[in-house]
Every structure is written in structure tokens, then in C-alpha cells.
């Protein structure tokens, strides 16, 4: 952090000089979770303006998309939000399947749901550990990564990758699930439940954490709407907006699960939403494992894929909120235009307004409660 003094000549009254200074947070700072930079104009310990400066890890995935075939873009989808790779691949294959009218066998859709929900839990575990690191608690991330490791091992067994899975294909999956994965996932679900109970006892109900997060970092439902914030941010503001139920996709309508909603609008509400979501994801996984249909894991897909001209959208509920792919095809085998609407971008865009007048430590806790992935913002 580099502080730079900026002295305004005189205050409005003309008597006392008004002194603010600019605090440059990042782009290399532990609380910035990657290369996020925030230019903060401070009045003592209070923030008068916090302007996020982004683009440090901009790779222009959208341009890359225009220079390769539909299938060749698949690996990119795991690298936008690297903690939520399954969901992003799901949105892209969903958009292409919608445009080309490719039918996906039920078994593939069930496996997509299982792996997506596993990915949601692993993503939330990273957030949980990182947020508590920001708040000064070192131990929880060690527990979180122990559980996350089990998920990564399971998914590695399926597709060979621990983070950038690229497991879905147009019309299905690249591999069928085997017994090792199915049994391992069942075992994980059973082991994870008591772990969540332990997290609640150790951290969530801890008075220090409660005092730190409750009542600070207010983000109202109206602000979410105006900025397009989604995911746990809007659900922590009392709105049950979840793409899985509002714009249902895949086989999600067949499962019984709740959308956790907390109306308090503070950092604690967003925290609790994510903690409850992990439990709901376990429920979905369990149901999907029980009802996993037999059959093929790939549908019929033409060898050379050309999409009919027009534009098509497909949205999914990623770990951070609404992720939408908008593709524009001109009938060729490469996209004419590929737009990636990422949740972190919209969730961060409200930060300047939401952080005004907060003290710095609370604003950093709020930043942690937004669960940002910087490559997801910069694309």
C-alpha cells in the first residue's frame, strides 16, 4: 500500500483545511485476491471514494473465441473463473447445444449437475478460507483445503484436471463416470455433512466473526438490481434470485433443494448464504446419485459443427452468480461474436457506491464477502 497525500486548499467553510489522501490498494496485495487494484480516497480511516481499477489480467477471451472453432473454445471456458470451471463450461456448451438443437442424454445432464455442485462446494470452500484469512483467522483455510482436496481428487479422476476441468462436451461429457467416482462422491457427501457442522461451531457461531461481519457492508436489493449483482450477493439482500430455479436449465427442476436467502443485506448475510448453499449442494448431489440414469453419456453431434445464424443466450448459476454466454453465429464453424457476462464484474461494479463512508477494515471484509475472482472480472 502506498499512501499519497493530497491536500485540498481549504474546506467548504474556508476555515479548516480538508485533508484527504489516496491509498493505493493492490494490484499486488493479499486482500485484493489477485491483481485487483482499488484506488481509495481516504478521510482518515473513512473511505470517501474507492475506485476499482481492473484489467491487469485481461486476456480477451472474447476475441480468442472469434478465432477458433466452437469446440476449440471449450478449454477457455475453464480459465475465466478458474474456481467455477464446470459452470462456465456448462453455459458455453448449453448455448451451443441450444443453437444447434443437440439433445443431451439424461445421464450426461445428471453427471453435469453432480460435478457442477461439487465444483460449487469447492469454490465456496476457497472463498471461506480466503475470507477468514482476510479477517485474520489463519486456521480455517487449512480445514477448507483438506475438504476441497477430496473434491479435486474426485474430479481429477474423471477428467484429469484439478482446476481447469473442461469436462463437458457439446452433447454430453468427455468421459463417463466410473464406480470409483460414484462411490467416492457418496463417501464425500457423508463426510462433508459433519464437517459443515464443525465449521458452524468453530467459525460461523464465533462471536468475533459475528461482530466483525454483522451490520457492516450493506448492499441492498435495490442496489443489486441497479448494478446487476447476482449470486450470494443478491440472495444476501433478501431476493431469492437463482438461475437454477428462475431460468431453470439442465435437470435442476427435478431436484428438491432450497435457495438460501437472508434479508439482512450485510456481509454476514452473504456469508450465511454461501454456508447454507454448500449444504443444499450436498442434497442435490445425493439425489442425483440416487437417480442417476443408465445410458449413453454423449448425444449425436455433427462432426463439423456449424450453428444456424442468429444469437443465442444461455445462463447458469455459477458459484459467484449469474454467468451468461451470448453467442452470435453467422452460419460458419467459428463464432461471429462471443459475449461472456461474468458475475464478478457486476458484483464488483457496485463496490464504489457500497463502500462510500465505510471504515477501511469493514470495506475489506465486504470485498471478501463479494467473493471476487479477478480473471473472471477481467476475462
Amino acid at each position: 500500500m502506498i499512501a499519497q497525500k493530497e491536500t485540498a486548499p481549504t474546506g467548504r467553510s474556508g476555515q479548516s483545511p480538508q485533508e484527504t489522501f489516496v491509498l493505493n490498494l493492490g494490484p499486488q496485495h493479499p486482500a485484493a485476491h489477485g491483481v485487483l487494484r482499488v484506488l481509495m480516497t481516504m478521510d482518515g480511516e473513512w473511505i470517501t471514494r474507492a475506485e476499482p481499477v481492473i484489467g491487469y489480467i485481461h486476456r480477451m477471451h472474447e476475441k480468442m473465441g472469434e478465432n477458433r472453432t466452437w469446440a476449440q473454445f471449450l478449454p477457455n471456458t475453464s480459465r475465466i473463473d478458474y474456481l467455477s470451471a464446470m459452470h462456465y463450461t456448462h453455459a458455453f456448451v448449453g448455448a451451443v447445444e441450444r443453437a444447434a438443437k443437440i439433445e443431451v442424454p439424461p445421464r450426461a445432464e445428471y453427471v453435469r449437475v453432480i460435478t457442477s455442485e461439487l465444483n460449487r462446494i469447492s469454490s465456496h470452500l476457497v472463498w471461506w478460507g480466503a475470507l477468514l484469512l482476510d479477517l485474520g483467522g489463519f486456521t480455517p483455510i487449512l480445514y477448507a483445503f483438506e475438504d476441497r482436496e477430496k473434491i479435486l481428487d474426485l474430479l481429477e479422476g474423471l477428467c484429469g484436471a484439478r482446476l481447469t476441468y473442461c469436462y463437458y462436451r457439446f452433447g454430453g461429457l468427455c468421459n463417463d463416470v466410473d464406480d470409483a467416482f460414484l462411490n467416492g462422491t457418496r463417501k464425500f457427501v457423508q463426510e462433508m455433512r459433519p464437517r459443515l457442522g464443525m465449521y458452524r461451531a468453530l467459525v460461523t457461531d464465533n462471536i468475533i466473526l459475528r461482530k466483525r461481519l454483522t451490520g457492516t457492508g450493506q448492499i441492498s436489493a435495490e442496489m443489486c438490481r441497479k448494478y446487476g449483482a447476482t449470486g450470494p450477493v443478491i440472495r444476501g439482500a433478501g431476493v431469492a434470485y437463482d438461475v437454477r430455479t428462475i431460468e431453470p436449465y439442465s435437470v435442476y427442476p427435478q431436484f428438491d433443494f432450497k435457495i438460501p436467502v437472508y434479508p439482512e443485506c450485510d456481509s454476514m448475510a452473504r456469508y450465511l448464504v454461501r454456508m447454507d448453499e454448500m449444504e443444499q449442494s450436498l442434497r442435490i448431489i445425493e439425489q442425483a446419485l440416487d437417480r442417476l440414469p443408465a445410458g449413453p453419456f454423449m448425444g449425436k453431434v455433427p462432426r463439423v459443427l456449424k450453428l444456424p445464424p442468429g444469437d443465442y443466450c444461455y445462463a447458469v448459476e455459477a458459484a459467484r452468480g449469474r454467468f451468461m454466454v451470448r453467442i452470435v453465429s453467422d452460419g460458419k464453424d467459428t463464432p461471429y461474436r462471443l459475449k461472456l457476462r461474468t458475475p464478478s464484474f457486476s458484483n464488483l461494479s457496485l463496490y464504489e457506491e457500497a463502500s462510500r463512508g465505510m471504515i477501511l477494515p469493514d470495506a475489506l471484509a465486504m470485498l471478501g464477502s463479494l467473493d471476487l475472482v479477478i480473471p473472471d472480472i477481467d476475462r
Partner: protein
Amino acid sequence: MSASLDRIAERFTQLLGQTAVPTRPPMPVSVATPAPAASAASPTPSPPGPIQRTDHALKGYDLNVAVSSRQVVLVAEILDQEGFALDAITGVDWLAQGEMEIVYDYFHPTASLRVVVRARVPRAEPDLPTISSVFPGANWHERETHDFFGIRFQGHPNLAPFLLPEDADFHPLRKDYQP
């Protein structure tokens, strides 16, 4: 839910019907703004008719509205009153037709409704008003669209490079861009 879609479609019909008539005779300023016909009768990708219901299962949205560049703010105000949230703003460069398309995506936080609003501007003069006064979230999306396509959003508070380097003077998603 479908009643709500009906209402929005009706409000758009009123808007597009009303504004199309009085804007023609007075129009004192703005040479830059294109003729409304340019967006209404757009070629191939968007089929004719300014307001279209679409099948969500086939397209991923429920309502497709083509407006002139001057109407984007009015449309944003209607959607704001109806409780919509801003999803994204982006551009599409139709090089062959000499036009830039600006696409506004909206979603509804409590109803399964997706609305897409499109406006077209000439490539040579890609100007249209900002909607950031209606949806503050549009600020970043418009800045990004300016980065990638060079579309100038009139009245935008700050169109400086955003995702691109701070000295960038190029627009990489234009179809004639050469690195």
C-alpha cells in the same frame, strides 16, 4: 408471469409507436443519430418487426426489442420501472452492413423474464446516449463496450480505457482491427 410480459410488450408498443411519430418533424440537433429505419429494418440476423416474442428454450430470452439509438434511455426507464435488472451491454460489429449493434440484456430478479434490446448505429459515427443515469451498473458495461468497439456513449462520466491498457487507442473487437 405471462401477464407481465404482455404489459412490457404493450408498453414498448406504445413507446415505439409514440416516439416514432413526433421525432420526425422537430429533431433540431444531432446529425449523428441514424434514421430510425436503420434499426427497425435491420438485415439478416435480427428478423423484421421491432418487438418480438421469442421462445426462451430456443433463444435464451423472452422478448426481443429493436429500437433506435435515441430510444435506449426511454426503454431502460420502462424496464427500470418494471423492476428489471441490467444483465450486460455489449456490441456486435456488422462490418458488411457498415453498422454497429449495441445489445442490452436485462433479467428480472423475481420473474423468469429476459428482455433483449438492440440498437444500431452507423460504424462511422457510433454514438448513442448512455443509460448509466438509469442503471448505474451500465457505467462499467458501457466503458467495456467503448474499449472493445469504440462505441461512444454520449453523457457517460468516464470512457477512459478500462480493461485495455491505459494508453490504448484501438478497439480489438472491431472486425477490421489488425493487431
